[in-house]
């Protein structure tokens, strides 16, 4: 029974947060500066997820070329800048990461 309440509660707060702005869509009008600011949301949030994931993959800052997450992440960043193709970046980045971890043994 405890679990039912746990899942119900988690559902309510999760869906509530996700839905509140969608619910008023169309009626909510954001000021110009806010609309402008929202354009920065995707790159800012995604970067805030990526950087700790590659710079501190095991919880502590690991700034070294021996860190395969960081090294492969940097390679993927350069590939994305040069090739501008998502699939190329993903495949090449994963390949470099696997190579570093399981062949080079970093």
């Amino acid at each position, binding site marked *: 029974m405890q*679990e039912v*309440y*746990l*899942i119900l*509660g*988690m*559902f309510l*707060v*999760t*869906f509530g*947060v*996700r*839905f509140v*702005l*969608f*619910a008023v*869509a*169309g009626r*909510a009008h*954001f000021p110009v*500066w806010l*609309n*402008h*600011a*929202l*354009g*920065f*949301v*995707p*790159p*800012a*949030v*995604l*970067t*805030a*997820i*990526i*950087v*700790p*994931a590659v*710079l*501190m*993959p095991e919880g502590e*800052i690991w700034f070294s070329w021996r860190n*395969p*997450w960081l090294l*492969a*992440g940097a390679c*993927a*960043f350069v590939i*994305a*800048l040069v090739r*501008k193709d*998502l699939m190329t*970046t*993903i495949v090449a*980045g*994963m390949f470099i*990461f696997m190579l570093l971890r*399981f062949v080079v043994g970093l």
Partner: protein
Amino acid sequence: MQSIPRSEFYAGVKATLPLIVGAIPFGIIFGTLAETSGLSAWGAMAMSVFVYAGSSQFIALGLLAAGAALPIIILTTFVVNLRHLLYAANLVPKTGHLPLRWRVMMAFGLTDETFAAVSNRFLRESSHSTAHWFYLGSFLAMYGNWILCTFIGIVLGGLFPDMTDWGLDFAMSVTFIGMVVPYLTNRPMWGAVLVAGAMAVATAFMPHKLGLIVAALCGIAVGLSLSLRQSQRTKTLQEAE
């Protein structure tokens, strides 16, 4: 289904596939850890089906195992999911014309991965009229995978305790890298991204992923002020001419 909605739907599925690879170990590990954390197999399945929020589900397991009270777990879930407000705020101006049932689907299916895939779709194509089919494809692929992986995790139990060492978690990082780079076309964007990344490391000590929200807000603030300064400068230049 007409052909344009169908191709949008499959484009949504396709754009989300690399992110799904990244989510597979997490779904399986969630299912594997559930029983030892004090959540029944049915409870774990129900959580993936009804809550559908990866990081919250993991934190809930951790808190359950630590013997935390129910209100604490629910409150923590709320805080961890606050970043979805930012996502929704970004998507709402593009979805206001849709009927409520579509917006309910979008809200329920709002995850880091689907948000990333959909905002990338908006960046590449300016037409919004069929983008909700893209969203549906991304959501169903992600959702189906999450439920399936939870199930596999529960069934396989402790057969693969070293899944975390496979390095599949890097798939999410590399996909997000490929998605961020196309935004980097001007100085305000570079400023926003550099500050968000540095602040994310500086605030990593904060509990419940709060640092993620703080870092994103700092990046957004810097990007906004840089672009306001830039547009002011061009205005003064135009007035000088």
